């Protein structure tokens, strides 16, 4: 569909391009003027920091002897990358966000899709109230949500474990094994409503005739949801998946806040946490390297996922 569109427009566009070159000189100034408000901040706040990060990742501060005077910066090529990837703690943090994402993202999106379908169903009452209620956690600043949850799970303060204790269950929501599920729960709580809203708006765009026609043909509500609505909101599902993958790779707020009540959560729990840890230790080069690796990972994962679903889409 899209490729066909490109082919159709390619011809006239090329011809127009030839005509345009003649006018380019006269047009240059206004074009530059109109582009400047975008290009200058884009270069200053987007390209320059990325470039500087890449640059920093190729250097290392070098000291000698006791090293109690100002260090010198030396070029080390890709040695920082070898060090970061050779660091078991950092590799562990990458693996950890991958695992959390692998479990949490599908669960959350299934949940979001379910809620969106329920909201979209004809028979649902109080739609506005529910829509707002589900969306509310996202409206709360992420850190506030994380602080709230950290108190809800903190040993000694948690009403959840206290209640479970009365039922004879000995829960510890911040034990080593429970850290990842607890963080997954915080993420799901905070982001389901946001994803639900994206899917819900996609559902709203589906013409009512489709459902009507299906009902006439004897399709059940389940059937309509599964055979008509879900395939039609596929682009929204792809979008929310990509956002969620990137979001999980950048996990920081939740573990950083949880660390205050769970000292067993290490300060290299997630890649960004590890990079921040390196900044605190005045090792900006290591922080830059870890950031680049994380950005590459998020890039590969999200584009890999896009390619995967596009190929599948073409096969269907």
């Amino acid at each position, binding site marked *: 569909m899209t490729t066909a569109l490109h082919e159709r427009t390619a011809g006239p566009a090329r011809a127009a391009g030839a005509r345009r070159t003649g006018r380019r000189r006269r047009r240059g100034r206004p074009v530059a003027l109109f582009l*400047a408000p975008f290009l200058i901040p884009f270069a200053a706040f987007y390209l320059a920091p990325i470039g500087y990060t890449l640059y920093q990742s190729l250097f290392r501060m070098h000291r000698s002897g006791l090293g109690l005077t100002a260090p010198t910066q030396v070029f080390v090529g890709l040695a920082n990358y070898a060090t970061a990837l050779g660091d078991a703690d950092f590799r562990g943090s990458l693996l950890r966000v991958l695992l959390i994402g692998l479990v949490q993202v599908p669960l959350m999106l299934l949940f979001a899709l379910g809620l969106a379908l329920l909201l979209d169903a004809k028979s649902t009452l109080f739609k506005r109230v529910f829509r707002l209620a589900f969306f509310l956690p996202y409206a709360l600043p992420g850190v506030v949500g994380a602080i709230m949850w950290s108190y809800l799970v903190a040993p000694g303060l948690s009403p959840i474990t206290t209640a479970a204790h009365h039922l004879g269950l000995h829960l510890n929501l911040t034990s*080593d094994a429970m850290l990842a599920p607890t963080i997954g729960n915080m993420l799901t709580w905070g982001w389901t409503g946001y994803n639900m809203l994206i899917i819900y708006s996609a559902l709203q765009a589906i013409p009512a005739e489709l459902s009507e026609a299906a009902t006439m043909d004897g399709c059940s509500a389940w059937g309509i949801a599964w055979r008509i609505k879900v395939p039609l909101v596929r682009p929204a599902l792809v979008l929310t998946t990509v956002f969620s993958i990137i979001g999980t790779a950048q996990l920081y707020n939740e573990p950083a806040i949880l660390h205050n009540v769970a000292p067993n959560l290490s*300060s290299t729990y997630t890649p960004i946490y590890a990079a921040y840890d390196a900044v605190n230790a005045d090792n900006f080069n290591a922080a830059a390297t870890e950031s680049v690796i994380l950005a590459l990972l998020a890039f590969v994962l999200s584009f890999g996922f896009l390619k995967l679903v596009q190929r599948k889409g073409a096969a269907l």
Partner: protein
Amino acid sequence: MKARSHSLAAALAVLTAAAVVTGCSSGSSGTSDSAGASGGVVKLDFWGWAPGYDQSVALFNQTHPNIQVTFDKTASGGKGGYTKMLTAAKAGNAPCLAQVGYETLPSFAAAGALTDVTKYAGDAKSQFADWTWKQVTISGQTYGIPVDTAPMALMYRKDLFAKYGIDKPPVTWDEYAADAAKVHAADPTVYLGDFGNDSYNYAGLAWQAGAGWFGTSGDQWQVTLNSAANQKVAGYWQGLLDKKLLKTDPSYAPSLYADMGSGKVLSDVNAVWDAPIIASSVKDGAGQWAVAPMPVWDAANPAYGNDGGSATAVLKGCGHAKEATEFATWMSTNADSVSNLIKVTGIYPAATSGLGNPALAAPDTFYGGQTIFDVFKAETPHISTDWTWGPTMTQTATDVGDGLGQAGTGGTTVPNMLGAVQGKTVAAMKQQGLSVAGG
């Protein structure tokens, strides 16, 4: 061609404008050099987090019309304050003055973030305890003025100790372990103390046992985190953890103060500056608390620990190092300033004149009217003065803190943690090009 050069000029103009704008904003919060000389008044910025510093600054400004200091409150050092200072020093707009702990000063020196004030500070040297002067002097260069030292003691609930049959606070660590078992046996939900995750508090326990973490020999570092002396301390605490005789709330966390308030945690071994923190954080039990000397390894030959102590350091790029040193010296030695710092900040002064300050003789109502500084004063001669901090303390402290937290939940043990951090620290130092002995 002409058109292009015009648009280029326009773009440059915009970029310059942007640079000027950012330059201004960072200048106002940062360096004091530019505004300094105007009207003969030297303006200095001072970053720190301790409560009470602002009042000492106000006192100074009242009596020194030609030097005006502005105190900016930052997050505490370990919670981002040091990162902010180091980043500002790197960017060239650091304040002249900063509150920096002795433990972090070598890291600041290693980052090249300090100004050598040896020539201005020389006269002040005789006014301070020798070892505190050593803490601010690195490789022969003095980088700031000491403010305080931090002897450790046992802060405990007198009434609850009596309730669980502990007639007098434990004098030795053996007694401490026995009391911990006694309390826990009487009520399994109650603990004598808490095993937190504050690496510097743990360092104080090692300090007491003469178990140094770092040392230098010639031009080479020695890392001794995993020494036999350190393993002895680690083994003791691991023993208590194995028997589940200690609570494992995070240090300075709301859950710890909740447990202290409800009588689930009966005591804390902590530094002098923690006494006012406990007083303000624990709601119930005011007047029932007391301060006793820290338990020792050998009652016949007592030695105590130190957890903290900080300096007013002069940061890189300070254009008024002389005035900055003058202020820092005044803040640590002036009787009014020291009184204020003792009362509000809870410091134990590094200046020898400060030890006679009347504020140290004031009874504390939270601690049942006890003159708590007497305890710290008696300990001071028995605190080792040859502790050395390493050049990578931020990283080492984070790693030790992580390990303590994990030891609390059984993820590792304290002895194993020390071995791991030793290896990591040596590797990190070697990678930076430092010469290190032992591995």
